[in-house]
């Protein structure tokens, strides 16, 4: 059988990437990566954030130049890679957020730029609709071509984007987290469509954090970690725990923090339920305790964070801060109750990028900085800003620098400073280390440590399980809207494999 597989591999290779390396200042994003895709296979590509998946795909799409290595498509080496040469070679990318002409019909989206004409040179709409309908039905895709794209569901848009790629003679399609915003029904629909195209000989690279789905749809899977390819396996040869083990590696803790948890409960949530987001969520945070919450997109973690901070409705159930009932209807109310939130998308919810570090740091405490008649006390403001620049080690030419000119890590520290300045009792951090460099990461861990030592109860929502293990006293896992598992340092059961398995919805027997 091994023999047979070998021959199959050699004559069926569609894409062969060899020895791809790519370095950024201070980071080796890719190191000697070998990656191959067979004709007509669905190839999973998994790895944690920052493992190098997007850099590798960037090289494949021609938007990143590799420092070394070769890309061979269908036996032809692709030199001088540009997005156009990659498209011409039949490589197409379908992003999570799809760019289509939303105000126009499906038919026009398919035939844009080259609509069929009648003998007077005018657009022949009848043929346009018939043509596009016929093309779609050839792919087995049932869509009303006269419908506007803005009226399509996300799954339908994804399928339309795949179809468009196929009409442009794509033979290898990269799907980036296509199911993140889909319900189960829509996932089945999408998978059915992808399988049908596979049978026609189209190959897919399937990038996803949902490992169950990888097992459901992929033929093979490649695991990346720290810029390297850990390995490629036939899907029938492995299972979820093995895959997780490959993703996690040796399990070296990046950071180790002593527990500072006190005895008194600072924040408690009882039976919280919000329609379509989460249900029966109960937990308590003690003063100085750091608790991680982890779950896939759609598991309810993101909604929980926003609900607890008043950015969205909190839903049914109750919450308490220091024993006092807590039900925020706006971020303002949350701040006043002593709850602060570090948003996941700092560009959208965190920063006013055109404004200075000073202004950003003091936004949430302006009330405390006003003297008579609403005049801001400049000296206090200046002192506060400088205090936090020093405390958090924000690297900036000065407090008047526009935050848009800072690095990602320093921008994140500015948002931290804004929250810490409110002197919160409860701090909810949402992916605090996303998009920051290694040095800034350690700084942020230290900030978390300092705050917890001061008695702040901290809840970290993160998919970086290894980081959570180093930082947290306990880790809660959410799946399908519910808290399904709890791991704790006290019980010594915080093993990355188990936690990841729980995140993926698997049963963990460590509880027993």
């Amino acid at each position, binding site marked *: 059988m091994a023999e047979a597989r070998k021959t199959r591999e050699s004559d069926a290779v569609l894409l062969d990437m060899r020895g791809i390396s790519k370095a950024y200042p201070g980071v080796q994003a890719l190191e000697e990566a070998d990656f191959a895709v067979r004709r007509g296979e669905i190839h999973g590509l998994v790895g944690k954030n920052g493992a190098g998946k997007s850099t590798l795909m960037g090289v494949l799409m021609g938007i990143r130049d590799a420092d070394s290595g070769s890309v061979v498509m269908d036996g032809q080496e692709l030199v001088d890679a540009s997005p156009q040469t990659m498209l011409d070679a039949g490589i197409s990318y379908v992003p999570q957020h799809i760019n289509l*002409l939303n*105000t*126009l019909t499906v038919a026009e989206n398919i035939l844009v*730029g080259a609509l069929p004409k009648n003998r007077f040179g005018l657009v022949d709409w009848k043929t346009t609709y018939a043509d596009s309908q016929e093309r779609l039905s050839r792919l087995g895709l049932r869509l009303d071509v006269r419908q506007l794209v803005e009226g399509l569901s996300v799954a339908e848009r994804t399928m339309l984007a795949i179809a468009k790629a196929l009409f442009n003679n794509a033979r290898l399609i990269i799907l980036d987290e296509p199911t993140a915003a889909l319900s189960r029904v829509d996932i089945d629909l999408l998978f059915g469509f992808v399988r049908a195209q596979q049978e026609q000989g189209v190959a897919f690279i399937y990038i996803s954090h949902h490992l169950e789905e990888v097992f459901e749809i992929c033929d093979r899977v490649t695991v990346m970690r720290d810029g390297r390819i850990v390995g490629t396996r036939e899907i029938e040869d492995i299972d979820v725990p093995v895959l997780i083990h490959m993703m996690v590696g040796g399990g070296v803790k990046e950071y180790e923090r002593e527990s500072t948890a006190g005895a008194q409960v600072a924040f408690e949530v009882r039976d919280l339920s919000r*329609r*379509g987001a989460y249900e029966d969520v109960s937990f308590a945070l003690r003063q100085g305790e750091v608790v991680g919450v982890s779950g896939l997109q759609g598991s309810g973690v993101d909604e929980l964070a926003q609900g607890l901070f008043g950015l969205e409705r909190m839903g049914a159930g109750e919450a308490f801060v220091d024993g006092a009932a807590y039900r925020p209807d706006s971020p303002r109310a949350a701040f006043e109750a002593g709850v602060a939130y570090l948003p996941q998308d700092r560009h959208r919810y965190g920063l006013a990028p055109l404004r200075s570090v000073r202004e950003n740091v003091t936004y949430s405490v302006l009330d405390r900085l006003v003297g008579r008649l609403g005049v801001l006390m400049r000296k206090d403001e200046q002192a506060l800003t400088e205090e936090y620049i020093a405390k958090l080690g924000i690297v900036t030419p000065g407090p008047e620098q526009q935050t848009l000119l800072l690095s990602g890590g320093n921008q994140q520290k500015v948002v931290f400073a804004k929250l810490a300045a409110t002197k919160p009792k409860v701090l909810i951090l949402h992916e605090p280390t996303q998009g920051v460099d290694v040095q800034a990461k350690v700084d942020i861990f230290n900030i978390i440590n300092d705050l917890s030592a001061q008695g702040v109860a901290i809840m970290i929502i993160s998919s970086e399980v290894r980081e959570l293990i180093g930082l947290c006293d306990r880790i809660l896992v959410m799946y399908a809207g519910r808290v399904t598992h709890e791991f704790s340092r006290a019980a010594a059961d915080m093993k990355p494999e188990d936690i990841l398995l729980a995140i993926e919805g698997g049963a963990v027997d460590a509880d027993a």
Partner: protein
Amino acid sequence: MKRAEPNRLAALMVDNLIWLFVLAAFIAFSLLSDRFLSPYNLGNILLRSAAFGMLVLSQAYTFITGNFDLSVESTLGLTAMFAALMLVTTEAGGLGWQLHPLLVILLMLVLGGLIGLFNGVLITKVGVNNLLVTIAMLFVLRGATYGISPGTSISFFPKEFTWLGGGTLTRIVTDNGNFVLSVAGIFVILAFLVGHIHTRYTQFGRNMYAVGADADAARAAGINVDRVVIIVYIIAGVCAAFAGLLQAGRLNAATPTLGANLIFAVHGAAIIGGMSIYGGRGNIIGAFGGVLLWSILDTGLNIMGVSPFWIDVSRGLLLLFAVLLDALRVRYQHNVQLRLALADTSVGLKDKGHSDG
């Protein structure tokens, strides 16, 4: 994949809101005044707003691509004044060239096109904001109109010239008076028809929509976005020049203030006709509905003896009403989508509230 069965009738009404307005206004004025339905008045509706209609057409073009051109009202003024200067004798205030009307018309259309080209290049190639460029051009062109004018109005144009703006094609005599089929009215209808065919049935027209829907996606589809935008500005300039010729012809006079301060009413007509300032939406026929609605209001109120000064008020209120309806529609659609998304999950059923509004 459940999807709300769209209420067909409601959708049809929302898509054709402008025609409901037109119909309602038409019926209302017919009931309120017996003179409204007279043949003379019906013939007049389009004649009075012919130049206005051409400006709306120019904005419809720029709107489809997600752009603005505030300067068209000044282009109207400048081309009217320029044409007048070249047509009449020195005694009548002109330059005394007395060029052939056909040549003048041609020159003015070229001038309008050049103005549009200038706008388009500044916006696409130099990168100046489209609102600001066309505001500045609005000043420049209006200023130039004053500058070249002899300070007074110019009149006494040759017949061949006024035929376009004020001429009569045919007159149908009825018991209630004459139905006058004006050249300008027919011209505007034809212009909109050509515009409709151009935007609906040519590759270029569809590229315009693609650019307005999503410039990046259009670029990815191989469309030369800058080129499309520049050409659209040229077309807008030519339409505005036509407007100038029609207006001068109808009034048989050119004054430096011709067309001044029209632009907001023009935008209003295009928007109530279903065009979006964000591009990619609406169609030329709808914009024509906007022109019709505005001129029905104009003539209707006029016939009822309402002071013409109330016309802008009614236009503004109607526009506000239309935007309100649109905002409500967006909110409704959002709620429907939310409900559909919730119907797919069984999570958190304890929570009874389900609207995030």
